[in-house]
């Protein structure tokens, strides 16, 4: 027993030292990242939480909570059942979350939440190894349509997930009818897929540009097309799919939702706070640093956009055969 008081005194001293410097006061607002630390949703919460505090839009610090499970499903269920009317709570989401909803993988429908805003988007790209014989999107389309079995495609989502769907949209636009003929290999991240491509295991990668930008700059890989409306500011030379006659865009936007029973007034307050945040230099800088293109959609406009996206995803998933 002698040890415990001893250990606790020394720990207590350290504790005291820490408390005095970190000044973790009681926090009002909370942002839930429905994933483990690291990755897109966690970044959204941590960055937005930090900037909200810096701009004095919230009192004290924003509390960041990680609640992983079921690609966001666990958090969705919890908010719908326990904290639907909590005006202090915001939750990170993205195109990936909406894809899950469209494919019926969340425990509650889209209407269970109020969607606040999107603050930026990662752009989908289609990449090949720099030694690849495939020189252009046109070359790739020709192979995908005429001999889909001869190439292996890969990305960071499951079969039927967003990286895969984007590529299939391109293939379908190019004229491939039996989309199941195109082989898909899932990797744990975009960089995993790219390094496996450099090692010669796979031929084509479809994923977000943010994570793999370093390999483009180093010349290890070549981007055939960016799935955006306009060329990406950081890489103006990369042609869009649209400019090559394939009318497909594939953004992975980053945004936030709050509970479905939050009042209109409190909802509008969040939207206007987030708009202030979006226009700040801090966010514009952080977004670019993380490889995002800053794009703003907020309030009712964003709600309508999310619904439209859900419908598109659902139709596409059904067409392709991911869902019945």
């Amino acid at each position, binding site marked *: 027993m002698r040890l415990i008081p001893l250990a606790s005194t020394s720990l207590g001293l350290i504790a005291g030292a820490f408390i005095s410097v970190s000044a973790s006061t009681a926090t009002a607002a909370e942002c839930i990242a429905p994933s483990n630390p690291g990755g897109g949703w966690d970044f959204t919460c941590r960055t937005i939480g930090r900037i909200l505090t810096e701009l004095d839009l919230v009192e004290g610090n924003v509390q960041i909570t*990680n609640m992983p499970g079921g690609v966001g499903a666990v958090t969705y269920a919890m908010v719908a059942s326990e904290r639907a009317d909590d005006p202090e709570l915001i939750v990170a989401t993205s195109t990936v979350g909406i894809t899950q909803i469209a494919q019926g993988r969340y425990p509650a429908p889209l209407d269970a939440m109020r969607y606040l805003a999107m603050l930026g988007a990662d752009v989908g790209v289609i990449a090949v190894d720099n030694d690849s014989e495939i020189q252009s999107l046109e070359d790739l389309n020709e192979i995908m349509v005429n001999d889909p079995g001869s190439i292996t495609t890969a990305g960071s989502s499951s*079969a039927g997930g967003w990286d895969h769907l984007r590529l299939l949209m391109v293939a379908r636009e190019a004229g491939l009818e039996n989309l199941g003929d195109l*082989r898909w290999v899932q990797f744990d991240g975009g960089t995993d897929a790219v390094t496996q491509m450099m090692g010669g295991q796979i031929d084509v990668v479809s994923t977000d540009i943010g*994570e793999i930008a370093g390999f483009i700059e*180093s010349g290890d890989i070549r981007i055939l097309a960016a799935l955006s409306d306009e060329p990406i500011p950081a890489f103006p030379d990369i042609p869009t799919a649209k400019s090559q006659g394939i009318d497909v865009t594939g953004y992975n936007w980053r945004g936030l939702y709050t509970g479905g029973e939050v009042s209109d007034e409190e909802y509008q307050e969040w939207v206007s706070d987030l708009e202030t945040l979006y226009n700040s230099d801090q966010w514009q800088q952080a977004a670019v640093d993380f490889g995002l293109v800053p794009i703003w959609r907020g309030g009712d406009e964003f709600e309508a956009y999310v619904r439209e996206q859900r419908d598109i995803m659902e139709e596409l998933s059904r067409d392709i055969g991911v869902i019945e």
Partner: protein
Amino acid sequence: METLNLLAVGFSVALTPLNIALLLLGCFSGTLIGALPGLGPVNGVAILIPLTFAFGFDATSSLILLSAVYFGCMYGGRISSILLNIPGDEPAVMTTLDGFPMSQQGRAADALAISGVASFVGATIAVIGLSMFAPLLARAAIYFGPADYFALYIMAFATIGGVAGVDPRKTLLSALIGLMIATVGIDPISGIPRFTDGNYHLYDGIEPIVALVGLFAISEILMMLGSRAGEATRAVRIDSWLPDFRSILATRWAMLRGSLIGFVAGVLPGAGASLGSVMSYSMEKQASDKHGTFGKGDPRGVAAPEAGNNAASGGALIPMLSLGVPGSGTTAVMLAMLISLNVQPGPLLFERQPELVWGLVASLYMANIALLVLNLPMIGLFTRLMAVPTWALMPIVAAVSFVGVFSISNSTFDLQVMIAFGILGYLLRKFDISLVPLVLGLLLGGDMERNLRRAMSISDGDWSILIASPISVTLYVLTAGFLALSVWLALRDHRREKERALLD
């Protein structure tokens, strides 16, 4: 010579008063966090990230702080393995095999000292490897395809057969149960949930740390309660508060071998520290267990896996920095943090931000020395933990395990899973089924399955892809050789015993 110059630049970046203070803070809190069951390096790094933002440290200082925490956690994880038979984090599982028997024999101080020095040796070798060959090794690692990873996991499972327990059937069964548990949750390749019974909490599968803490900590409490009242207080004799330095020196070759194996495992993205400690332990046992002392408190059984897991965690920084591919959960968190500090790990990092990379390397050298210096004097303090009576110690261990798990996931469901694993662990221990292979199955199973399926997707269903690359063939040949050697050694021992029996 150029490397040395760069390293000198690195030291000039790292050796500022602020950075040294951060380094010490990181080492200390990392050791503490790593020692708490339920909290590992992932949490340690995640916990300190907000701190780096709050103070607005620059990228180099932040990275120094977080790497110190990372290394500190790897050092700290072994403490509860040795003293309580409860691994502080995943890679420390192997250390329970010989570390806990050593402390029961009254050699806790030796075990802690050996593991501390082994951690230092392993991590230092890894950092030397990192500073010499990082870009080269990263380039080599990309040629490791899914089929090769599958061969590597087969090798890992083949080698653990002889690690623990008497009946090899039970060891294998334990590993298979771990593999079964690893398949619970959403299958990341097809996106469909398996064995979840529609429960969303199971969609991400069983978190290894939750299972680990339940299997070891909760089952330990049940074991104590099950024994007769008089034995419930574990009387441990402590021969010495101070380690015997000759016994540390005696494990030097085990440390070196463990470091090399662990380093190689760490460089391969995805394999990580757990694989490093498994492989180094089983190889060491094969190489030097001449008298059947492994598993009964052999110092080399502590030295090898500790050197291995620390070398692997150092090695894992190579693919993280030079490819941007995280080799483990912890490096994934560090990667996210680097990106949010406007550092883009990847092929150009070494050219574009040499002061950052070399500052980091220099700080890793310093962190290692700091950890050794911090850890050796603390041995006396830690061994005194053994003097705390069971009725006080075990409830605290339970509470710390619970709060560690709960504060990360915010889910009481995880606590129930943990208790259920405690019951499972208790029953398996009663049946003489070692828990270590189960944990390995759980840790490695997901990657093993995914790489098998990736390989099959690439070959369009042709199984011959598994032996199509020279790397995988080499690994299978090594595995076969290893198994043949084990069988031969077992037969020889058996024959010798017979001869001896005849002579008597």
